[in-house]
């Protein structure tokens, strides 16, 4: 976690509840595919794979964040970098 300068602004029990709720609707959103047919409504064949968008979203974000964190090695400078000569 990043903000080490204070206690969590939302009580931990509530955070747990929010996390559980998020994971629950994640499951619901994939389960919902059982009730209709994506064929004919999506553009590509690979989009018809059950849970394709879920997996794509998850993997995209994990890759995005991990790559961005690595990018820091290349681009990170001190806050006053441009103010110094």
């Amino acid at each position, binding site marked *: 976690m990043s903000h080490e300068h204070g206690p969590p*602004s939302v009580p931990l029990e509530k955070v747990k509840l929010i996390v559980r709720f998020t994971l629950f609707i994640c499951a619901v959103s994939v389960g919902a595919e059982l009730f209709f047919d994506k064929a004919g409504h999506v553009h590509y064949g690979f989009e018809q794979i059950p849970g394709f*968008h879920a997996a794509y979203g998850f993997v995209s*974000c994990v890759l995005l964040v991990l790559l*961005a964190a690595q990018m820091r090695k290349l681009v*990170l400078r001190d806050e006053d970098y441009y103010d110094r000569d």
Partner: protein
Amino acid sequence: MIEQLPPGLILILGGLLLPLVPRSVRKIVLVLLPALGLAHAAVLPLGSSLAYTVFDYELVLYQVDALSRIFGIIFHIAALLTAVYTLHDDDPVQQVAGLTYSGAAIAAAFAGDLITLFVFWEATAITSVFLIWARRTERAYATGMRYLVVQVASGVLLLAGAILYFQQSGSLSIDPWLADGNQLRGMFAFDTLEQASAAQLLILASFGIKAAFPLLHSWLQDAYPEATVGGTVWLSAFTTKLAIYALARCFAGTELLIPIGALMTAFPIFYAVIENDLRKVLAYSLNNQLGYMVVGVGIGTQLAINGAASHAFAHILYKGLLFMGMGAVLYRAGTVKGSELGGLWRQMPYTTVFTSIGAAAISAFPLFSGFVSKSMILTAAADGHYTVTFLVLLFASAGVFHHSGIKIPYFAFFAHDSGRKVKEAPRNMLVAMGVASALCIGIGVWYEPLYALLPFDMDVIGWIPYDATHVVTQLQLLLYSAAAFIFLQKMGWYPPELKSTNVDVEWVYRKGGKRLAVQAGRAVDAAYLGAREVVFATAWRVVHQVKVWHSPTGLLGEPWPIGAAAIAAATVLVLALGLGWSG
């Protein structure tokens, strides 16, 4: 009468005269002007125009079609909301700058020829820089100068392109699209770079600078976070969207724009993830959103152009709302650095809710504005079989939710308590954010009025945003992005907010260029000193030699006998005679 008044003029003239208005009513006038302008732009009939003649050139001050109208209307709405948002701030510099800037952007969007476009294009640059300078710090002054140089350069390129085009074609008018079935082609569209004329490339570069194309983008992330609280909200609405309008108008169907736009959606989000200044995060995310519109323009079908126009419309509202939220935080907490914030939701509950609505809208959640606009562009990309582009846009859509949807509200309002004691935003800010939020939801739920403003009839195109597949797949994409955020936080892999600067292309001119300039200066200095040495030494030797010759014992110092002088004179005469003969 109404048709004699070009759109934008109310704001430009009103803005210039605003300081003369008594202070007690100035705020009323500030809000009244964009409201009047909006009414004017809404009632101007399609097809109306106003021509004028300058030095035998027929110019068109304004012309109204569906594309200029939708941009004109959203620009006015943005001006109105921003005017309300800035009411607490009694700074006439920002009031004049904001009104004239928005007026210039509106006038540019209605311009019927390239010279009129150029004049207002440059006017947006000159008026908007005051929104940065109004911060009145040395840092803001330097940033403003860099911003101004880039913006004016864009205008110069446009003028150069317009002159070349005039030489070739004898015309300055901005022509309508050519249509081939569903496919549109702007007047400057080209198929391959080899076929493009210098005029086309100059104008594309001009538009590309203002649209923040990759490598031409860093003025945006440099300048926007440095402007005043209200200044950034003004800036976020106009310059870049004017460029999108100009691209859509002139370069629709230029395939080169598809990879450019796709790149724009993807690379800024990496910076957005690690950036600490939350207004800069929004500037990167703005760049990413422009990418979708550029892709839409590049595809250039009716659906894609409708997508670009409607996305610009929705984007101006939710991006303005997000900048308003972060502006309120800056105003109250004195900082928008993620590393210094957190836990503000208790003290700024309304700002938290409004910012979260903006976050949901930019993330394109169903029932929010981004959902009914962005997906048109993705569908158009798939229809055109641009599979890689489609996948990049999908990746960027997940990423947007991550950095704008989650990161902005999370680090400002939640996360760990920063211990700051702040007040809720001023009432005028809350009103502006409230109305913007209502519009973000309103457009998402009741999208038909927006669609009615689009250049092409959506019923004829036959596309609707809400079907079960689209809603569920979009929800999956977003919810699993949230799951990824939870996962990364749990694993301790989420990069912390750090006090830092992340170098981008601006390094070239802020560090590399500076270093180059310093080194070049030193080289010139050394060359000058060396040259001076040589010149001085040579001159000294000459003087010395002359002195030696003229000394009493020197060659010229001794008295010459008269006979010698007579012989010398005779020799010269003979030589002259000889030359005369031979001539």
